[in-house]
């Protein structure tokens, strides 16, 4: 009997021999609720700190363009003890994800969590009209015959099988931009148009690739599972549309690979594609500021 075999037997027997303690689900749920409240409070604190930093940096950087001299930063006015800080209003709103909500202005989106547990957040600025909320925003033209969308996320899983919602997915997601880009180049029913190529986008080094995907599904083609839910090409398969082109940029954000994508139907107009590009280029990672 090899040591491998003996370890298998010993561990299994040891585990089975244990008396399992009683379960108190309510205590677990109570602990989970306290943990969630602490997490939310921490995030709110981070948001306030970021707002203060952004506000402070902005004040320092202001220049009187008429005279060319630097304007003295205005000292932050003290607020009476106990009053809520006015800087909280500088933090953009959370982007809604319910369908059909019209999007305009700037929103802050939780993109994922780094390996060390730090939230990765990004601000999106919607300058053009016609963007609708979903897990990730979409825009359309020609009465819904052509669609485009933009996404930013850290994938939990990636598509396998047919790629359709409900099909298999793999939780083995690359931990480096290169590994993740290679996986994206092998999405189900996809053809690589541009292989992973080093570039720079949104202020980060990145790998860019472009694939064409056959998105015909009973529901939708699901690229990945993310902190905002499915990253699906939700409307792309409607009206008999078969293929979409999707560009991926895989960035390294604070040591964590993050995907930025932009997709459109093959027959989308240059104007619609331009709107998607404009939205993608508006994205700013908060943690990188």
């Amino acid at each position, binding site marked *: *009997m090899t040591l*491998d075999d003996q370890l298998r037997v010993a561990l299994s027997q040891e585990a089975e021999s244990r008396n399992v303690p009683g379960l108190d*689900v309510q205590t677990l749920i109570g602990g989970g609720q306290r*943990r969630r409240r602490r997490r939310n409070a921490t995030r709110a604190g981070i948001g306030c700190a970021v707002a203060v930093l952004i506000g402070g940096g902005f004040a320092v950087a202001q220049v009187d363009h008429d005279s060319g001299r630097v304007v003295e930063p205005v000292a932050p006015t003290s607020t009476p003890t106990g009053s809520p800080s006015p800087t909280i209003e500088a933090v953009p709103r959370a982007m809604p994800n319910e369908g059909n909500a019209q999007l305009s202005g700037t929103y802050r989106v939780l993109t994922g969590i780094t390996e060390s547990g730090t939230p990765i957040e990004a601000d999106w600025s919607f300058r053009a009209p016609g963007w609708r909320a979903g897990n990730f925003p979409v825009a359309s033209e020609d009465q819904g015959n052509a669609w485009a969308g933009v996404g930013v996320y850290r994938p939990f*899983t990636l598509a396998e099988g047919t790629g359709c919602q409900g099909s298999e997915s793999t939780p083995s997601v690359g931990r480096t931009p290169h590994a993740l880009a290679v996986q994206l180049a092998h999405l189900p029913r996809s053809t690589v148009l541009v292989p992973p190529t080093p570039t720079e986008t949104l202020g980060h080094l990145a790998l860019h690739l472009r694939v064409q995907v056959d998105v015909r599904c009973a529901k939708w083609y699901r690229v990945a599972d993310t902190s905002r839910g499915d990253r699906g090409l939700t409307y792309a398969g409607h009206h008999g549309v078969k293929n979409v082109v999707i560009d991926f940029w895989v960035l390294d954000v604070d040591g964590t690979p993050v995907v930025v994508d932009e997709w459109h139907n093959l027959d989308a107009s240059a104007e619609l594609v331009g709107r998607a590009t404009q939205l993608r280029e508006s994205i700013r990672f908060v943690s990188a500021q």
Partner: protein
Amino acid sequence: MNVDEDFAEFVAARWASLYRLAYLLAASHSGAEDLLQTTLEKAYVNWGRISRMEYGEAYVRRMLANGLISSRRRAWVGEQPYEHLPESTQDSLELPVVDRSLLWPLVCALPARQRAVIVLRYYEDLSEAQIAEVLGCAPGTVKSQSSAAIAALRRALAAVATGEAVGEL
């Protein structure tokens, strides 16, 4: 079914199995209870997402292993993972059958990360690549940790067989 009910149903169904894994990882009853409670509280916070996963239980089991390592994380530098292990050819050597009461204390004496690798490999049946993903390290590092653990166990077993006192691994 709301989140609390769904979570409670999952925990009730998988409690014994999760506790046993936690016990092997933590190598003690009290450590297992602490590890399992902390992990399940974290799972509850993200239950909306975990419950939609195809392999939600596998994810929670990985959280357990990750929780053990995270709680004991320290500077882990200077180790050089390597592809070919000098003692790997000995892995298949036949050994006399060893009583569990002898082998388990030796596993408990391993450093936490080595013990986690052994438990994930021989109890959870994960591949080296899967263990690397769970522990957040390179596959070569898993190999070197596994190799070190197996070598330590062999030394300890040899010492026991020759009647020597078994010190800390």
